């Protein structure tokens, strides 16, 4: 069996394939795959309906931040085997996936804990932005609660 542990990151303007992400973490040594899918929620904001999200990224830095994050996760949960993150860019309609994250591990507990941490840290530190686009043609940039420098109102 191959002892290599993979970190696979992809930014994509096409619809994300959950199966592709699951396949990327497949390993005969793993009994568990933990997965998180973030989707665009249909929401009403001040009476306007969200029709979709527009994503952009600092692409080069996304790769390096995800690599750091994976290293950090592996230090905390040394048993996790493969990590795969696909994040959507550009226009994402309500109901479609914007991010799919999968982690494989021999035992489920490691993977389940690791994926919660991974999602939180991704939202806190990976340079990707989205704006909500409303049925009124208006839009507004979102801020993750997890981002340390967000939220200061002045």
């Amino acid at each position, binding site marked *: 069996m191959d002892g290599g542990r993979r970190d696979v990151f992809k930014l994509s303007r096409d619809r994300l394939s959950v199966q592709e992400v699951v396949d990327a973490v497949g390993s005969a040594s793993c009994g568990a795959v933990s997965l998180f899918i*973030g989707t665009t929620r249909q929401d009403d904001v001040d009476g306007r309906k969200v029709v979709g999200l527009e*994503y*952009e*990224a*600092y692409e*080069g*830095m996304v790769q*390096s931040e995800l690599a750091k994050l994976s290293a950090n996760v592996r230090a905390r949960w040394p048993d996790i085997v493969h990590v795969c993150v696909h*994040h959507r860019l550009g226009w994402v309609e309500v109901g479609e996936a*914007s*991010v799919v994250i999968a982690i494989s591990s021999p035992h489920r507990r490691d993977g389940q804990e690791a994926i919660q941490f991974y*999602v939180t840290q*991704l*939202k*806190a*530190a*990976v*340079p*990707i*932005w*989205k*704006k909500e686009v409303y049925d009124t043609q208006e839009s507004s*940039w*979102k*801020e*993750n609660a*997890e*981002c340390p*420098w*967000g*939220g*200061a109102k*002045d």
Partner: protein
Amino acid sequence: MCVLCVVCVLYFAQSADLTGVRGEESVAVPTPISSQDLWTLLLRRHPRLSALQRRVVLAVRQQYVAIGDHLLTLEDGDEVAVVPPLSGG
């Protein structure tokens, strides 16, 4: 090292909306410079960036740098980015 060097500045998300550009190839910046002074220099180029005041960080050579006293040593061609609050995921 240079006393005045030429860096490339990238603007993302709300900062691109505020400046009207996504990047500037050749921005002259003294070095060393504190991250606060670098931000002030960018504010002078694009006063509307003040809308991001106190909820923005910079990235220099793709590493986050909080705005403050931290002294940066820049080189020609370095990549500097304005990083509004993140909203990935």
